[in-house]
């Protein structure tokens, strides 16, 4: 793990990214935000049929939630590729997501208060 500040990313890819996505372009789908929370669906009987990246992704999220950004970070793949993989996996029922909160609710007083309370409880 590198801890140095803001140098070029290193991805030890063995194949060019579009190989992983079966030649499909990067997805800009609105379904997945950087902080959309993802978990593996409970029934994973068919997981063995998935390609290596998709299987790795599903296994990464078994038993809890991770954000799209965290999945990309752990898998060392660009966000755009992760979104393509997630779109497929969601369509086939391998993963579930927590619906992102609509932007209108984000500035909600309740959320801000919880953020404030949480920070103060943790670092206060």
């Amino acid at each position, binding site marked *: *793990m*590198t*801890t140095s*500040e*803001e*140098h*070029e*990313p290193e*991805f030890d890819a063995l194949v060019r*990214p579009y190989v992983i996505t079966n030649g499909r372009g*990067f997805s800009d789908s609105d379904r997945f*935000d*950087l*902080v*959309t*929370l993802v*978990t593996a669906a409970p029934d994973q009987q068919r997981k063995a049929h998935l390609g*290596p990246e998709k299987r*790795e992704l599903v*296994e*990464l*999220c078994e*038993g*809890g*939630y*991770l*954000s799209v*950004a*965290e999945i*990309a*970070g*752990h*898998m060392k793949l*660009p*966000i*755009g*590729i992760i979104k393509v993989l997630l779109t497929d996996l969601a369509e086939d029922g391998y993963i579930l997501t*927590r619906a*992102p*909160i609509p*932007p209108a609710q*984000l*500035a*909600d*007083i309740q*959320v*801000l*208060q*919880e*953020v*404030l*309370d*949480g*920070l*103060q*409880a*943790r*670092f206060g």
Partner: protein
Amino acid sequence: MDSKHVSGEKTLLHDKVQIAAKILVVGHFAVGKTTFIGTLSEIPPLRTEETMTQAAAHIDDLKGTTGKTTTTVAMDFGRLTLNERLVLYLFGTPGQQRFVQVWEDMTRGALGALVLVDPQRLKESFAVMDLVEKYGVPYAIAVNHFDGTLARSEEELREALDLLPETPVVTCDARDEKSSANALVALVRYLQSRTR
């Protein structure tokens, strides 16, 4: 194959988590964004990249290239579970104008931004300030003072950065947990004041 993530220390969020909030930590190159995030994050900070395609200004067509170039932008981020149902992500965002595509993605749904500035290099913050303002992200200024001395008064700094009177300015040491948390608290209090 499986062993390659063992060192990555993935920590899953609990089933009860409902809300993922996002705050941006922005600033010019090497101002301390990654340090700040690492100081507060409960997981080892992760790095991810966005790939973007941009039309090249002029075509280098010796080999028949299409006139598009692909650029990758690295973002470092961290995570803070604040209560059973709420998790906060801190995203370090580079301030260069050419990364506008990333900014659209980053700013969507963000609660606000903490702009880290180095008082010795104020000019370098102008580009990032333009971006937060362009995308309408409410922000507070955190002056990261590396050696404990402030070269400028708050008045000078406000004037140099052309801040609104209500924009909070705090000092912080990005290496210090308490100090960094206080800067975030100042931002959140400001965001609260805007909703009233």
